[in-house]
């Protein structure tokens, strides 16, 4: 299976007066699995559809494997069917008037492949999604999860250069979704096909991607590996949208202008050791601390960096973790700890976190 590189530069998509995508630039490397993550209306699906050729952009450039498929400057817009990409739709779009086999064979028949090859490729694709026994079944009789698998098999059967996924798991129930996530990641690794995936589910994005592109209001907020996005959120939006984080207001104290460790004076007193990914400009007024990265102890602060005293106001038992709301001089902080060592409501505690987990956000 050949792989292609996708280059998008300065993509703009307008619907009348509304700018859905506003100057998005992005490169997807060969064989890479990139996820566009963002709330509804952020332009992620529109970007994906523009790559597929289903949406006509009004500006910018899209290249697939070096070939320009859209260019505003050259007034070129290659039709969807000539781009050699494939897509899994949110609604699955499994054709109800065909059998499972006919659905999966569609892309192969379009390419007028010999009969035996079609049969072989369909079988291979159905094997990959464990739907081989359903080949003769009418597609109208499938369950949601089965339709999902058929849609996936159909998308990979004709060995496309690029696979696009438009929220493919959003219509499945939670358990099935978790299973399909594992399978999708596995499949993507085995096929090694370049893929772009769209979702609003941050857990899903972190779990299955090589890189995550966080989008908001038509633009890109941050691009990075899942660990990067989680551990080093660049903006308040990313810290808020991906995972759960505490935002502490204040200002940078020693304005050395270097990336790395900085001292941050939080409103309400304590001075924190924080981490700046980029040289601070001085306009920064917030640090983010992941709720999972804060330790709780009953003993008094013992001079460690970033220790804050507080009182547990509320305890919520979630099963996999316990969430505490702790009142502290910097405001109410949310802390998530494993359920192994519970603390009581009303207890006086000391919170602490490592300087590299206290991330300075862009102003």
């Amino acid at each position, binding site marked *: 299976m050949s792989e292609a590189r996708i280059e998008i530069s300065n993509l703009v998509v307008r619907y009348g007066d509304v700018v859905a995508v506003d100057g998005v630039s992005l490169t997807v490397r060969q064989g890479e699995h990139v996820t566009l993550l963002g709330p509804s209306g952020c332009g992620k699906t529109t970007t994906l559809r523009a790559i597929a050729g289903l949406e006509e952009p009004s500006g910018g450039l899209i290249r697939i494997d070096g070939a320009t498929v859209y260019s505003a400057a050259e007034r070129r817009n290659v039709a969807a*069917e000539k781009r*050699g990409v494939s897509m899994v739709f949110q609604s699955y779009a499994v054709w109800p*008037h065909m059998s499972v086999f006919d659905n999966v064979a569609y892309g192969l028949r379009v390419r007028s492949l010999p009969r035996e090859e079609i049969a072989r490729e369909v079988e291979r694709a159905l094997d990959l999604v464990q739907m081989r026994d359903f080949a003769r079944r009418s597609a109208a009789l499938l369950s949601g999860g089965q339709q999902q698998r058929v849609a996936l098999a159909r998308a990979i059967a004709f060995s496309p250069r690029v696979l696009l996924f438009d929220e493919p798991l959003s219509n499945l129930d939670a358990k099935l979704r978790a299973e399909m996530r594992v399978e999708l990641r596995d499949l993507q690794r085995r096929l090694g096909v370049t893929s772009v995936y769209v979702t609003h589910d941050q857990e899903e994005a972190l779990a299955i991607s090589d890189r995550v592109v966080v989008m908001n209001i038509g633009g890109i907020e941050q691009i990075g590996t899942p660990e990067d996005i989680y551990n080093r959120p660049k903006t308040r939006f990313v810290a808020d949208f991906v995972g759960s984080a505490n935002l502490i207001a204040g200002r940078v104290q020693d304005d050395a202008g270097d990336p790395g460790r900085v001292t941050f004076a939080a409103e309400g007193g304590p001075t924190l050791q924080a981490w700046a990914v980029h040289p601070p400009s001085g306009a920064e007024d917030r640090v983010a601390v992941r709720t999972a990265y804060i330790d709780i102890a009953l003993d008094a602060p013992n001079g460690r960096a970033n220790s804050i005293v507080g009182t547990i106001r509320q305890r919520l038992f979630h099963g996999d973790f316990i969430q505490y709301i702790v009142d502290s001089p910097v405001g109410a902080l949310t802390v998530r700890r494993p359920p192994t060592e519970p603390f009581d409501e009303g207890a006086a505690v000391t919170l602490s976190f490592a300087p590299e987990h206290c991330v300075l956000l862009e102003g």
Partner: protein
Amino acid sequence: MPSGQSVTTAAILMFCGGLVVYPLVYLVAESFNVSGEDSFPPAEIGLGNYADLIDDWHVLANTAFVACLATLMAVAIGFLAAWTLTRTKLPGRPQLERLMQLPYYMTPLVGALAWSIIAAPRTGFANQLWHGVGGAGDLVNVYSPFGIAWVMALFEGTVAFVMISAAMKSMDPALEESARVMGAGKWRTMLTVTLPLVMPGVLGATIFVFAEMLGSFAAAFVLGLPARYVVVTTAIWQAVQSFPPDYPRASALGIALFAVMFATLSLYRAVVRGGNFATITGKAFRPRTMAMGRLAWVLFGACALYVVVAVVLPLAALLLTSFQRFATVILAQSEFTFANYEAALGFGAVRAALTNSLILGVGVASIGVAVMTVLVWIIYRSRAPGHVVVEYVVMFPQAVPRMVFGLALLWAWLNIPIPIYGTLWLLALAYFTVLLPLGVRTLAGVVLQIDKSLEECARVCGASWFYQLRTVTMPLLRPGIIAAWLLVFIASVRELGVSIFLVGPKAKVIAPSIVSSWLSSSSELSAALALLQTAAVFIALVVMFRATRRFSGEPL
């Protein structure tokens, strides 16, 4: 792709726009013609013809009276039937629901003929029986404003029924249930929740039915003329039939009728758009039904009675009459004969009319539905500029009364050197134009149900537009196409309003032939023809139910 689509859209827009607008331009011009001779453009224009309408005030008053009365009855029938069939527990509901749709396919012409056989003064079956048992005078007289309204209401009642039950079905039962949970009783819920939510639907149906009544011709023609009770549509017909034909007067009447009908339908659109609340979500709910106890049988009886007086009784009367030499219900006096069917099916003008109607039905349905499919695709799927205008143009003929459109076509093509007046070609063109809204609406219902990504997926898989159309779009549209074909076929076979002005010696069709045989006072031959027409319609109807049931449980 976009440029190709734009060109196609523009071409179709020009073609449809021409078909619809062009004849009306002629009609408007003629309505201002006060020169005394028929020419286009008129040698002298003025408002004289419209001023003359004031002298016709009794015609206008008659039209308003009959339309109001008929609307009132039709909506009463429709509301009661809709409520009974959607909101109460009733024995045999699915069958009854299907039977309730039959009157629509009976056509007012056939119904009016049948009811004149049943209830005409002196000779009507009911009055024959009345005299037979020694009654004096007439028991009933259908040759009256009430008779006209009665027959019109019987056959429009179904339309009201379908529209009102759609409103009732699209109401989420949770809206009523939450009122009940909050402590409101059955009646309070009905008054404060159910009625306000259903009202826009009822109001919409009332206005729509009223517009249809204004433009209806057959009942007023068959039942009104013997009593010299003239409404606008029959006045137009008389003006054209008089010697010499008074086209300016007919045109002015037609334009006035069109203006009122257009205003009424605009009001209908405003009501339907404005009064939507939460009721119309496009989703059909199965509403909670109430157990009515013994009252259920009364309601069942009422619905069944409607089907009997609108379908069974008329068909029985026609059947009996069509086999008699002279129509009589007193069987001891009757002379049975096949002569009427021999006359209808033997070689001659009548048989030619039957054949022509079938040819037109098949032809218009086949070519028309193909064109309509493309139109629907452009209106609802393409982003080609102007697709909104296409929708408007395509739906426009609905706002033009059939009679008026027929008159406009007559006038337009008389003035054009293309010799298709008096041929089947003009009839075909006219049918296509007036049936555009019907076909497009039927097809649109199916197109809108097809998820767009089903088509997009085909493109992404590498299919060209035509390949996608052939392998995905068309197969998914098939049930809708079959339904549209049969509906257009049915509507062509029964068409009267447009045809009556466009038939010629070499281009006769069935409905106007029924009218002329009626005029030559042969109710027996008319009955035979009406039954043949009804048979063709019902055969198509059965095929349609069979064909569409396989794909969906919904009747159309």
